[in-house]
């Protein structure tokens, strides 16, 4: 846990309150680390045809789910005990929302692992894995950066992640087109390419969740809700 003096949530008169908020924050980051590695390992399992690793990823999801419940419980207790306001309230509310995003990211990783097992059992030459690796790395760095923006309360970095999301969408469209070409070339590719498409879809969703986390970080820092608003609006809010 970081030094209390360096943390904006660590300077209340009540030390117990400091501890509770900072614990909530670090628990959230711990869960973030868990799902980050889950996605990373799911992609590796797919690309390297590693069924065992894919099984591990699926098993890990239970721990992530458990963590979600624990964090929600802690947040509920903080509300009941402390009636947080302003910045503290925004932290608690954002964490409650963001854990749901992290849990979904975990589900997407599980989904990828499931397809990895299916594809490795079919044992054909890989098609579209380059795209999976590429988009995978992109959304992983977005996820990592969004957690980093949360840890450092960096609204500018959060804004950069929101902008990245558009690029991921474009990459996803391009990859879909490539896979369509494979399918048209040889109809025997269809089932396999469809699986890869589902994987790409899952990764694209991971990018969306990273983006949601980034929006919550902006809310935590600036106190303004930038969900469902154009990026230009968010840019104005962050610039204030």
């Amino acid at each position, binding site marked *: 846990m970081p030094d209390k003096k360096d943390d904006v949530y660590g300077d*209340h*008169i009540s030390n117990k*309150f400091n501890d509770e908020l900072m614990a909530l924050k670090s628990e959230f980051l711990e869960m973030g680390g868990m799902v980050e590695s889950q996605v990373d390992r799911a992609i590796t399992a797919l690309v390297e045809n590693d069924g065992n690793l894919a099984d591990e990823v699926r098993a890990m999801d239970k721990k992530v789910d458990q963590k979600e419940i624990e964090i929600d419980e802690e947040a509920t207790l903080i509300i009941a005990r*402390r*009636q947080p*306001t*302003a910045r503290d*309230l925004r932290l608690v509310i954002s964490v409650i929302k963001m854990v749901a995003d992290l849990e979904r990211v975990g589900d997407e990783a599980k989904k990828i692992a499931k397809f990895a097992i299916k594809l490795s059992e079919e044992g054909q030459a890989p098609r579209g894995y380059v795209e999976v690796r590429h988009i995978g790395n992109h959304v992983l760095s977005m996820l990592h950066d969004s957690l980093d923006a949360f840890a450092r309360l960096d609204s500018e970095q959060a804004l950069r992640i929101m902008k990245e999301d558009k690029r991921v969408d474009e990459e996803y469209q391009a990859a879909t087109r490539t896979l369509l070409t494979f399918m048209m070339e040889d109809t025997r590719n269809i089932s396999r390419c469809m699986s890869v498409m589902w994987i790409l879809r899952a990764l694209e969703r991971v990018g969306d969740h990273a983006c949601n986390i980034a929006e919550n970080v902006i809310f935590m820092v600036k106190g303004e809700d930038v969900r469902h608003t154009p990026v230009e609006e968010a840019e104005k809010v962050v610039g204030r």
Partner: protein
Amino acid sequence: MNTINPSISTGVNMRDKQAAEIPVPQDKPEDTIIEEGKTVGKPFASDPKFQLRNVSVSYGSDRAIKDISLDIGRNEVISFIGPSGCGKSTFLRCLNRMNDSIDICRVKGQLMLDGEDIYSPKRDVVELRARVGMVFQKPNPFPKSIYDNVAYGPKIHGLANRKSELDEIVENSLRKAGLWEEAKDRLDSVATGMSGGQQQRLCIARAIAVSPEVILMDEPCSALDPIATARVEELIADMSKSYTIVIVTHSMQQAARVSNRTAYFHLGHLVEVNETNKVFTSPEHQLTESYITGRFG
């Protein structure tokens, strides 16, 4: 009404006077970021009941209120919050000249009620206090019957000519204060025998019996249990339809629950006034944020 109980009002005044005299710690960085006379947020209202401009209050050489400008809207509920000794009670008591009884207290600036100067030499203070009633922290019923407590104000202000009119005023006031059902069968019992929450609602009934336009409340629930507090808060919500209510409170949750706007005071400055929802979710001023999140106070 309440002015005829000098021991109570002086008690409250003395406490705040002492609070105002507590030496101000100079080493806090936040103390230096207040600009005198500058309030962030929305201190002005479109339909003001009170227009207060450049108000300063001093007790001898100590300045308790430093150049505050604020509007209080008609039928608005506004909360004053801030750490002890920040001047919120002093400022509240300027609104019906309760500070007059303190010799060393000097009030400067323009204080207008419905466009008329509160501190004009021509102002009838008794009439002012009938228009601007007050409820104190500690319930302070007279050692008389419940009926007489409520009937006292209307009697001395000549609001009722006949006993039946007086009965009506007493019943209406007790109904508005949510006390009628509990008190109707014991109107002749002595008021001090009631529970704390009932006594406070009786004081509110006593305040509204003289048909005021404004009710000032100085920590009205700090001596009450949660149930009695909820009743008083419910009452504030009902009364806000017909009265302007100014409430000083140490309970931030109470301010968040009952008021339309919240004003944050700090060391005699009015730091921020904003919609209550804004103050408690994303306040504009760093000091407001520090106070409401429990970082000092």
